[in-house]
């Protein structure tokens, strides 16, 4: 039951996008999200679409994988669309019945918001589909390194993230074992109302936490035994270095964002 949770959604393939430095992909995602809320008019919309299609094509990930992420936010999208549709005031009234009015502006807004949301989800899933959680952590660590001058424990945060990634499957498996053990003793995790069910979780959570703390203690000792003393003086087995393709990607990104801004200024 708990086993089918997969972490991240990395889709292994041999593509340019997969090979890009994770920092580039993080930056690109950020810029793409900004561009989605910057573009205006059909031309800007076209540019964002073309950019997305090109990137998806380059990534060699099947389009169906991208769309999967949309399912989880379908309700959010519906609500956004409905609110925009009915609650935007405007001159040109298209439909009017009872207390509801749909204006031309409302229709436009609804469509654009919907498109923005869809592009947002698809765009970010390109990053998660082409980057392993480990690369992502590495990328974040290196990208945020300047913050360590402000005493932000960047290395520690990245280390915690990667350890969490390693232990989530183990803890899930353990939850499964404890659940079965408690069910064999008559615990009921499935019936009753929410409060009762939450109460029934106690015999699951207590042993799980105890064991998680014990694991943490063991792991800390194992790390210490292997000379771990934090980020200082540490070398990397897989250091991140920008390649020429990464600089090219940055250039591509700058051109794209400049295009979006220019279109907004001159065509609006």
């Amino acid at each position, binding site marked *: 039951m708990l086993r089918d949770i997969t972490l991240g959604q990395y889709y292994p393939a041999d593509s340019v996008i997969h090979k890009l430095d994770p920092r580039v992909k993080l930056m690109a995602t950020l810029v793409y999200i900004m561009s989605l809320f910057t573009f205006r008019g059909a031309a800007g919309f076209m540019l964002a679409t073309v950019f997305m299609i090109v990137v998806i094509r380059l990534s060699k990930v099947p389009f169906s994988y991208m769309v999967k992420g949309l399912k989880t936010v379908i309700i959010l999208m519906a609500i956004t669309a409905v609110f925009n549709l009915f609650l935007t005031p405007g001159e040109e009234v298209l439909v009017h019945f009872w207390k509801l009015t749909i204006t031309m502006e409302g229709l436009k807004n609804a469509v654009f918001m919907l498109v923005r949301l869809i592009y947002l989800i698809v765009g970010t899933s390109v990053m998660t589909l082409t980057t392993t959680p480990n690369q992502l952590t590495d990328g974040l660590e290196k990208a945020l390194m300047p913050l360590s001058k402000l005493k932000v424990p960047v290395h520690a945060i990245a280390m915690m993230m990667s350890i969490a990634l390693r232990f989530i499957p183990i803890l899930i498996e353990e939850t499964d074992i404890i659940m079965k053990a408690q069910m064999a003793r008559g615990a009921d995790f499935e019936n009753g109302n929410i409060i009762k069910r939450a109460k029934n979780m106690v015999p699951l959570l207590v042993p799980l936490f105890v064991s998680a703390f014990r694991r943490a203690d063991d792991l800390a000792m194992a790390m210490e035994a*292997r000379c771990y003393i934090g980020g200082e003086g540490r070398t990397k087995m897989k250091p991140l270095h920008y390649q020429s393709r990464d600089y090219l990607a940055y250039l591509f990104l700058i051109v794209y964002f400049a295009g979006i801004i220019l279109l907004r200024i001159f065509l609006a």
Partner: protein
Amino acid sequence: MGIIKACKLVHEYIRRDEEGNVESIQTALNAVDLDIKAGDFVAVLGHNGSGKSTLAKHINALLEPSEGTLFVDGKDTKDLKYLYDIRRAAGMVFQNPDNQIIASVVEEDVGFGPENMGVPTKEIWQRVEESLKSVGMLKYRNHSPNKLSGGQKQRVAIAGVMAMEPKCIILDEPTAMLDPVGRKEVLQAVHTLNKKKGVTIVLITHYMEEVVDADYVYVMDKGSVVMQGTPREIFSQVDTLKEHRLDVPQITLLADELRKAGLPLPKGILTREELDAELVELYRRKACQSF
């Protein structure tokens, strides 16, 4: 002086109440003397609570002696400036394979130790490859540790220690959580490291069968070393071992029972082959006498 030398080593776990007053003192190690030669395969045997895991943690300088001294590779474990030298010289493998693997890819985990030591990237790759090869796990280098068996995970943990190029490896009940196949794999890997790379091995265990091939054995009970010697010397004293709540290998026990029943077998038979040979020899002599 050997690579590991303990003189009157004492460790006390002190439990304090909220005000910091001493509530109880539990002596886990009581005046332990050890001398382990470089290149040896040494086993430390003991029942639960005999202090053997505490001893292991001392050798890795994870604990500080309450009294007495412990030298690892000629360095005093009390001296904080040698802390990392000691941990480099004496690597440690723990009981639970899951709780000592840090990364989510095998090769990255093996690289963790060298990364901490500040080894240059290129050399890390060499070390990782070499140590994975030495435990026979090279083809799993890109796997996730979650998908490996217990024995394989434990071998990855050993490779992780090997990549730090230690002179000595302490294994704290490395097979306690494994099935028989996994136990065999791990022991084989450890023996290979000892023979081919000359790494000193300190194997802490309560499985008698794992001790048979060791060069030297220490038996611990209630925090003290109660017996020491070669496996043959140790296992020839079946009754003393039983006093310390330890068994002997089944074959040794069988030979002992046979001897008690009147067969003139020598003491300290350790393997099936030895017992075989002795029995055949005995039968032959008997046959000669009767004719």
